[in-house]
């Protein structure tokens, strides 16, 4: 069975500062990894995904993530955050069988002036 752990439930950060949101997964097979963002009262929007190839993945809104197989991690980073990045971020894993996405519990990013 696969699982996803997002260790930080909340991350406060000042505007223009860098941020890292942590995600660790467990799976006995190859995985596809995703980060989604959810703004208040909205659905989930795909930020980026890792399917194969380069372990550094670039997404929308200046976010990037690095797949680290040995550490089973897929941390999300942004070098300089903006107030508009305030949202909840979800890491998810799919073992590729079209079975289902398993989500982490989410990290609330709060960007302050």
């Amino acid at each position, binding site marked *: 069975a696969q699982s996803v752990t997002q260790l930080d439930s909340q991350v406060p950060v000042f505007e223009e500062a860098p941020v890292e949101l942590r995600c660790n997964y467990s799976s006995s097979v190859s995985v*596809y990894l*995703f980060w*989604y963002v959810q703004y208040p*009262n*909205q*659905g*989930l*929007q*795909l930020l980026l*995904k890792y*399917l194969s190839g380069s372990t550094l993945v670039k997404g929308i809104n200046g976010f990037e993530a690095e797949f680290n197989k040995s550490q089973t991690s897929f941390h999300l980073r942004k070098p300089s955050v903006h107030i508009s990045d305030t949202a909840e971020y*979800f890491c998810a894993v*799919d073992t*590729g*069988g*079209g*079975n*289902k*996405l*398993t*989500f*982490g*519990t*989410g990290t609330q990013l709060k960007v302050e002036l």
Partner: protein
Amino acid sequence: EAGVTQSPTHLIKTRGQQATLRCSPISGHTSVYWYQQALGLGLQFLLWYDEGEERNRGNFPPRFSGRQFPNYSSELNVNALELEDSALYLCASSFPGYGYTFGSGTRLTVV
């Protein structure tokens, strides 16, 4: 390209009633997934439909059911509503392995 559309956006029902939620996937996507996002419980997988068949379901009672139509749109039915069914219900569609595109959700409130 139109995204995943869900209707209605908000739904208020009384305990014991039935709720029907609808989802239209992105054109060409054959798989539809339903998730429940209840306060404090995160995103819980409900159902997966592909090519008109139910392929998998999460740990929910049988009063949560649905179907997928020949045009790949889908319906989620919740019978005998309970207060704890109040949640945001999200639908997503995909080609397997390529990530899911989510709709904006239906906010179900049971009173």
